[in-house]
Structure formats: structure tokens, C-alpha cells
């Protein structure tokens, strides 16, 4: 607290802004205030815009390949294989002459779908369990913590490799398996937050007027953990994209001919001397997506942290 105060006092110009905010501006809600701070965080806005663009590109992949690049992601044309990046093939072509940019865009659709499905399912599991564990405590909490300890001891990537070799995984199956393994982080964070929230007076007040446990949990506590959940969504999307690409790179994730950034990278390894570009673009796509999500999530966290309120 003290550091923020000194910082504000030390920087000239902030004071007048503060006055303007405090005296002239209308009272802002929590979300209004968060939005205000988010808008003024240049890196976060940039991350958000890039991420939004990548999502739109992924959604519009069929349209992009039909109207912009005019290539089908899986159309083979051996006459133009190993083409270097040019005006006709923005990112060049791979060993089958498939347009690399089109494939990257379609692969983005898969990566982002896995990311969002993973975030949705793992957060549903994690939030519900974390909420219940934090709220009820007791044996249920102990049991959940024991289960989380077990999950945290399992090295995921080796396990996923073994599962991937036994069953052929599509992107939906992959996202579901990842969610089943990866809900523990969210549940631990939510639980920690619920432990402190349930001590607040308004929870006591709700209980006094006879609200049921379910009502207190979902009407009074859940909205207050929502901001943390939003940030976890970001980190979840990013981590699912990274895991999927590692797994597909090793050959146990989504299988060709469906393009994913991971299996494109794995494929490009055979042609590093012939066409080194093939190894560059999928990696940049992964990095850019993950970086934009991280910037966005970091910005959201700062914007919604009441301690940083100005």
C-alpha cells in the first residue's frame, strides 16, 4: 500500500488526475474501474488486440482460405513444393506444395479451440471443486487436497505420450484429457480466495437472513472470485496451446493431415536444409499467440487488483 502511495505522490501529474477522478468523475463500479485501468495499460491493450485478431483469423479460417489466400490447407501441388515466402505463398509451401500460411491459419483454429475448450472444462471442474472445498472445508477439503497432491506428482507430458500412443486423439479428446489432468491449479487458487471471502460480513449477513449454502456459494462468493477466474482463463488457454504443440511435435497429438502448429514443426525437421522457413513460422505462431494471451491476462490481473486502484 505504502509503495503505491509514494509512487503516486512522487510522479507529477498524477495528482491532478487523481483529483479529477475523485471529484469530477462519476462513481465507477468495480468493472468500470477495471476497464478504465485496462484501457490505459498499453501492453495489455496490445496483447488483447493481437489475441482478438488471432481469434478472428482462426474463426474465419475457411473464409480466409477461400477468399484471401485461395488455397485449401490440404491441397497438394508437388510442382510448387518448398516454395520460399512470396506474394503468392506468403509463408511459402511445404514438401507437398501446400500453402503454409493457410495451414498455419487452420492450425490456429485447432490450437485455440483446444485452448478454449480446455479452459472451459478445467475451470468448471476446478472452480466448482475449489468453491466447495473452500466453503465447506473439513473432510471434503482434505480429500480434494490429497487428490491435487496426487495429480501434481504425475509428469503430464510422459503420461500424455503413453495415452496418445494407445488412442488416436482428436482435438476434442485431447482438450478433455488435458482438462481432466489440469484443473488443479484453478481449484487451488479459487479455494484460497474462498477461504478468505467466506469470513466476510456479507456472507454472514446472507446466512443470517437464511440463504442456503448453494445460494451463498453461487450468488455471493462466486461473483467475487470471478475476476481471478478470468485471469486463469488466459493462462489456461496459453498452457493448453503449449502442451498441445509439444505433444503434437512428438507425434502423439493431433495427427496429420490435420495441421497443428506442433505437427507442422515436427514435419519441418526433415527439411531444415532444404527449406528452413518451415521451422520458423509455426513457432512464431505459437509464441505470438501465447505472448498476446499472457499480456492480456497480466493486464486483466493488474486492472482487477483492487490494491492497484488509483
Amino acid at each position, binding site marked *: 500500500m*505504502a*509503495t503505491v502511495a509514494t509512487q503516486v505522490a512522487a510522479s507529477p501529474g498524477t495528482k491532478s488526475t487523481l483529483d479529477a477522478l475523485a471529484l469530477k468523475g462519476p462513481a465507477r463500479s468495480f468493472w468500470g474501474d477495471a476497464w478504465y485501468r485496462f484501457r490505459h495499460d498499453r501492453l495489455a491493450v496490445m496483447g488483447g488486440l493481437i489475441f482478438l485478431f488471432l481469434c478472428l483469423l482462426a474463426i474465419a479460417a475457411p473464409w480466409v482460405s477461400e477468399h484471401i489466400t485461395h488455397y485449401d490447407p490440404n491441397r497438394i501441388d508437388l510442382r510448387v513444393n518448398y516454395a520460399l515466402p512470396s506474394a503468392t505463398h506468403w509463408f511459402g509451401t511445404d514438401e507437398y506444395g501446400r500453402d503454409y500460411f493457410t495451414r498455419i491459419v487452420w492450425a490456429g483454429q485447432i490450437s485455440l479451440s483446444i485452448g478454449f475448450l480446455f479452459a472451459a472444462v478445467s475451470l468448471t471442474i476446478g472452480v466448482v471443486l475449489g468453491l466447495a472445498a473452500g466453503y465447506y472445508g473439513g473432510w471434503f477439503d482434505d480429500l480434494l487436497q*490429497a487428490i491435487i*497432491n*496426487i495429480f*501434481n*506428482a*504425475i*509428469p*503430464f*507430458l*510422459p*503420461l500424455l*505420450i*503413453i*495415452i496418445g*500412443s*494407445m488412442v488416436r486423439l482428436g482435438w476434442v479428446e485431447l482438450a478433455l484429457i488435458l482438462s481432466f489432468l489440469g484443473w488443479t491449479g484453478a481449484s487451488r487458487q479459487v479455494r484460497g480466495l474462498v477461504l478468505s471471502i467466506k469470513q466476510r460480513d456479507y456472507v454472514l449477513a446472507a446466512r443470517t437472513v437464511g440463504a442456503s449454502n448453494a445460494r451463498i456459494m453461487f450468488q455471493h462468493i462466486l461473483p467475487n472470485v470471478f475476476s481471478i477466474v478470468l485471469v486463469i482463463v488466459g493462462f489456461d488457454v*496459453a498452457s493448453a496451446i*503449449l502442451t498441445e*504443440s*509439444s505433444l503434437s*511435435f*512428438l*507425434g*502423439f497429438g493431433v495427427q496429420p493431415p490435420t495441421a497443428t502448429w506442433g505437427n507442422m*514443426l515436427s514435419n519441418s*525437421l526433415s527439411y*531444415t*536444409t532444404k527449406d*528452413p522457413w518451415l*521451422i*520458423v513460422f509455426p*513457432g512464431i505462431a*505459437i*509464441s*505470438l499467440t*501465447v*505472448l498476446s494471451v*499472457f*499480456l492480456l491476462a497480466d493486464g486483466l490481473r493488474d486492472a482487477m487488483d483492487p490494491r492497484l486502484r488509483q
Partner: protein
Amino acid sequence: MTRYLARRLLQTIPVLFIISVLQFGLINAAPGGPLRAYLLDPNISPEDVKRLEHEYGLDQPLPIQYISWMGNILRGDFGRSYFTHRPVMEAVSERLPATIELGLAATLISYLIGIPLGIYAGLHRGGKIDHVIRFFTSILNAVPHWWLGLIIIVLLANTKLATGVLLLPLGGISTIGKEGFDPLDFLWHLFLPALMLGTGGWVTFGRYMRSETLEVLGQDFVRTAHAKGLSERVVVFRHVLRNALIPVVTLSAGIFVGLVSGAVIYENIFSWPGMGRLLYDATIKKDYPISIGVLFIFTILAVLGRLMSDIAYGWVDPRIRYE
């Protein structure tokens, strides 16, 4: 301390039990079952396989099979490879040292780079170098480090093709054709894989060290230390560093589990003859006894790593008492 240790060790038993049940489930879920390797062998008829299944007790109910499987594991018998028929433990223990060496080197690198960088950035907050460090760590945090490793290998290979100079080896643990163990050659081969595997660690450590240093710098005892005239060096090393190190120690367990998981992909890229590479090769061939044996050892390493970091936690933070 001894009591705490004993209790912590006891707590790992249920964890290992549940994980062993999961892994037993995996073995049985494997297509073809445990005798799969013999199904295609022309010397063994399907009737023989049936008879063997009966003689080996594979037609018993699963819980009974589990008990005898677990009994074997406790005696160090993880079964045999489907292909080479070598005992799993023999194949795994051959590869264990390489993985441990790579993991330790990566951990060491992540401490050596992450901690000084984080402290420096924290002490010089808002300065030019702090901005540069934060910029690069944000980017490195998002880039898959194994992809970076691939790019470096491609660059090294192309320099070699262009100039004939091999700056760093492209993979492997020793120069091919070299007799005996040459420590310098080993370190030369270890450097790049360990640096890449350790990147995730130092980026994380750096970020935590920075925010933790900032936190500690604002504490009263640092002001007191300055006020009583201690030199900057003593304040930083004795007071700031020791307190800021606490989260690094807590994080170490997670990092270690990450390193173990990561071993699979890095050992594969750098042809490092460790357990990760073994797991990959075995899984490609669907040699499940080996894959699952490696997974089991990985899990035990991860559990031990967590245990060690819990103990170290009390060592760096005297406020933690083991009761």
C-alpha cells in the same frame, strides 16, 4: 525435524499407491494386453498365448493381478521389454544418470541466471536494464523453449555447413568415436540442452525474485539494517537475498516436476540418451512395460523433488517449524 520427515515420507505412500493403480490400469488398457508381443510371433500359437495367460495368472481378477504386480515392483521387478526381453529396470537404470545429469545442470543454470537477474532487476527497478530484462523474460516466457532449441540447432548446422566450424554439438552426449569418458567433451555436449531445458526455470525464478526483492526492500528490517549503517552489500546479501529466496525454494518442486516432464521433449531434440528418450522410443514401438516403468521412475523423482523442496523451505525460512 525427524518426525516431520517421517510424516512427510508416510504421506507420499498413498500418493504412490494411487499412482501405481493408475499405471497398472494403463498397462491393462494397452491394446493386446501384457502378452501382446507374442501375438505376432509365429513360434507361439494363439492357444499357447491362452495357456501362458493362465500360467502367468493373467486370467485372474484384476485386484489379484495388481497385488502380485505390486509385489514385483516392490522387489524392483518392473517386468520385461516386449521386444528385447530385457528387464525394464536394467534398461531404465542405464538411462537414469543421463537424465539426472541433464536435470541437475538445468536446475543449476536456472538458479545461476534467474536469481542474480531477478535481484538485480528488483534493486534497480524502473531502470533501463530492468526494462530490458522484463522485456526479454516476457518474450521468453511465451516462446516454446524447445522450438528455440530447434532453431539454434538449425543455425549451428548451417554455420557448420558454411564455415566448417562446429560451435556446439548438434546432439548426443559425447563425440562419436571418442573412447572413454572425457569431462570437457561431456560438458560441451551438456551445455545447450541444459541451457534450453533450464530456460523455463530461470525465467520463472527471475520474475519471482524481482517481485520478491521489491517486497522485501519495502520491509522495516531493511530500513533498520540501512539505518544502523550496514553496507549495501551486507544488506542485500544478508537481509534481502535470504528472504527473497523463500519463493524460489517453494517453486523448485514445480520446476523439478517440469524438468522431468520436459526431459522427454529436450532429450528427443538433442538426442540425449536419457529416460525421456527411452520413453519416447519405447512408446513409438508400443513397448509399454518400458514406457510405464519410466513413467513410474519419473513420478518417484517428482515426489522426491517435492519432498526435498519442502525440507529446504524450512531451512531457508527459520520461521517454519516442523511440528
